[in-house]
């Protein structure tokens, strides 16, 4: 029987040897739990601290099959841990508590627990917990992978599930077409060849994006896989592929944001006020980032306020790698636009200010994103920039800002990413908050706006996909395309998409990663990176990454923060509303966008271009340009 199995022996004997991580602050209970589990012949690791548990899990996602955790813990709420584990690692989590209140049990289930056990524990109850592992793996596998490709004949391979998934994603990345086919099979999606086929584009509206970001957040950046996101989102007529591509973009966006955030951080330093915020943000990991970022919106505001819109533009101009002429402008435009838009303006201005200080292309992007985010934070007060960011909820809303912030924090000095190719990334990365779908779109639009500079629909990109989470999409969609980013960034990005799947080390989102790219990644690269960075942080980012199906126009969205609404004076150049996204096309001559923006544009362009023409190396052949822009928001 093991002949066809590739699993290790332990797995063969499943449930024997199932690897469980037990978390409980009460030593007596923990000791009891451990002994009980060992009696069931599971492989037990214990810790009394939730933080330690997370660390262990993040170190190696495939190290455990199941997590059992107490609800009542001093260092972290059990539900929170539950959420994080579910999102980041996609592992089944069982809650334990002495309290069997229906409300609590309900809470556990809604937070994603597979089961809720009451103390005192009995061995009988523990003897069956392996079913959760099997169930999850099995369904995931079934859902995700179309028959067979990596399906293991045995469902018991508890540990395999994750591996499968990862593998699948990796595989997807490598072979997009093939994957697509698989996807098609799975989803019945007729989206066979993104490039050649024009499918009806899915408009990633603010609402949709928000759901996306929420889903991604819930699943965890590292663990957000399209299938699950799709399930969580529960939107009719949305296919896994749509989600996949959006996720990809989002990830890129996040990456971008992180890079931008770094740069922003630099700027922030310059600004002074936001420093703390940013650094704070930078340190945030995973989901927390979002919240923090969201929370820091005040900072943003503050920071932004101080900055005149022009500042942003200035940043865009930083030649860092932007190379794209047009980009900066678009980005800037958006930023400035944001300001105009209204209450959000503050945010935007902030963003801009950040951007400006950053002096990097990336900054610009970030700025854009930030502004986008800010806007969102501001509750979309007339923020045109993000388009319909529905929420002002900080936490979720701001994918863009978040990403930006992250970007700042990360101190990516190479803004180039941002401006550049990262255009797409930017958009995407920015939104940490999953909900910021809208913002992501806004960002995207803005990004795209930036991208437009180049004449491509990059503007979409630029919109900084707010949904950092979204960027996660490790789907090949973006991967192939995003990766092309020629410069280092490209590599990073490229790898990013792939890594999207991988639990990126929990570095606070790839932002940091991206930022480190520093190398002035060529536009494309930058974008990607950002996206990646953003991923973590900004779920919202660029949803536009729907490379396959989205044509350049899609990108525009993120940034298209309703430029139309506010005075798009800045944006007017290219604010194009597409799909609800405002594509801000940086006017080449746009006052705003200095060359710096070019990077953004490039990114956006790259993204878009990629979409349109894979082969065409838009700025750094970041095909994703379009993606990033779009998806970003």
């Amino acid at each position: 029987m093991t002949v066809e199995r590739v699993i290790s022996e332990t797995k063969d004997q499943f449930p024997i040897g199932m690897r469980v991580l037990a978390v409980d602050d009460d030593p007596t209970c923990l000791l009891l739990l451990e002994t009980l589990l060992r009696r069931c012949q599971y492989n037990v690791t214990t810790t009394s601290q939730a933080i330690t548990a997370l660390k262990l899990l993040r170190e190696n996602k495939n190290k455990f099959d199941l997590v059992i955790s107490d609800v009542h813990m001093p260092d972290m709420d059990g539900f929170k841990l539950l959420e994080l584990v579910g999102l980041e690692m996609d592992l089944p989590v069982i809650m334990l508590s002495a309290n069997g209140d229906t409300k609590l049990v309900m809470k556990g289930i809604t937070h994603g627990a597979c089961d809720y056990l009451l103390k005192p524990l009995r061995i009988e109850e523990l003897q069956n917990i392996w079913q959760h592992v099997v169930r999850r793996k099995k369904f995931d596998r079934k859902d995700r992978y179309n028959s067979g490709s990596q399906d293991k004949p045995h469902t018991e391979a508890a540990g395999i599930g994750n591996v499968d998934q990862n593998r699948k994603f990796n595989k997807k990345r490598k072979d997009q077409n093939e994957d697509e086919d698989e996807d098609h099979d799975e989803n019945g999606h007729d989206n066979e060849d993104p490039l050649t086929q024009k499918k009806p584009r899915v408009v990633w509206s603010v609402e949709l994006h928000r759901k996306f970001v929420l889903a991604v957040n819930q699943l965890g950046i590292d663990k957000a896989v399209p299938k699950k996101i799709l399930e969580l989102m529960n939107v009719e007529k949305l296919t896994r592929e749509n989600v996949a591509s959006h996720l990809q973009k989002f990830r890129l966006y996040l990456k971008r944001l992180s890079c931008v955030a770094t740069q922003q951080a630099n700027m922030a330093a310059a600004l002074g006020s936001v420093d703390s915020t940013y650094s704070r943000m930078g340190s945030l990991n995973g989901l927390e980032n979002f919240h923090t970022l969201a929370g820091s919106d005040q900072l943003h505001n503050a920071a932004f306020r101080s900055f005149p819109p022009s500042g942003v533009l200035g940043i865009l101009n930083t030649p860092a790698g932007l190379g794209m002429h047009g980009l900066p402008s678009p980005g800037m435009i958006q930023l400035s636009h944001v300001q105009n838009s209204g209450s959000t303006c503050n945010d935007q201005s902030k963003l801009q200010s950040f951007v400006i200080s950053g002096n990097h292309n990336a900054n610009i992007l970030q700025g854009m994103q930030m502004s986008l985010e800010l806007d969102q934070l501001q509750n979309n007060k007339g923020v045109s920039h993000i388009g319909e960011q529905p929420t002002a909820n900080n936490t979720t809303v701001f994918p863009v800002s978040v990403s930006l912030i992250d970007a700042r924090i990360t101190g990516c000095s190479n803004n180039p990413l941002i401006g550049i190719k990262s255009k797409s990334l930017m958009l995407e990365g920015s939104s940490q908050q999953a909900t910021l779908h809208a913002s992501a779109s806004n960002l995207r639009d803005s990004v795209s706006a930036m991208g437009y500079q180049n004449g491509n629909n990059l503007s979409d990109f630029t919109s900084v996909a707010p949904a950092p989470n979204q960027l996660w999409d490790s789907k090949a969609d973006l991967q192939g395309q995003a990766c092309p980013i020629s410069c280092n960034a490209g590599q990073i990005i490229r790898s990013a998409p792939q890594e999207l799947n991988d639990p990126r080390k929990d570095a606070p989102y790839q932002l940091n990663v991206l930022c480190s790219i520093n190398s002035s990644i060529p536009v494309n690269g930058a974008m990607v990176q950002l996206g990646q960075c953003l991923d973590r942080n900004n779920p919202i980012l660029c949803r536009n990454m729907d490379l396959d199906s989205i044509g350049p126009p899609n990108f525009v969205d993120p940034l298209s923060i309703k430029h139309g609404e506010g005075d798009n004076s800045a944006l007017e150049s290219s604010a194009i509303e597409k799909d609800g996204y405002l594509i801000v096309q940086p006017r080449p001559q746009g006052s705003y966008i200095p060359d710096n923006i070019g990077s953004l544009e490039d990114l956006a362009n790259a993204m878009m271009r990629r979409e349109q023409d894979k082969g065409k190396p838009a700025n750094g052949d970041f095909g994703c340009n379009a993606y990033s822009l779009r998806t970003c928001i």
Partner: protein
Amino acid sequence: MEKNPMRRQLAIMRQALFDQGYLDEQFIQLEELQDDANPNFVEEVVTSYYRDSARLILKIEQALERKPFDFNKLDGYMHQFKGSSSSIGAKKVKAESTLFREHCNSGNGEGCVRAFQQLKQEYATLKKKLEAYFQLARQAGPMETACRPK
């Protein structure tokens, strides 16, 4: 049946603990987990329990000295205390902690204090009994595997 008189005595003592409601089924779970690989498991768990819960008891006491009562905090402590008490099968102690929590929920400060006094008493009584029990167990030598009371 135990041949060794000490073991017999041990068995009787043990049964009494159950009959008198000091211990419940959970204690048997602990006993069942004790084996050759883990020969002193029950005692280890109980020792661990008394050590950790002593801290909790202290915290609760201190919290009860501060007026007005912070019921949330008290409830939190007690929740934890109840969890570990139930894990070792301390039946009466667990019942008292439930009572205490009820008083907390209804904001009955006096009730809390009273319940806490009761709880401490039960807690101390059980501790003494278990200590005697384990002491005898050590003297009696390795026991037969625990079997569930029919």
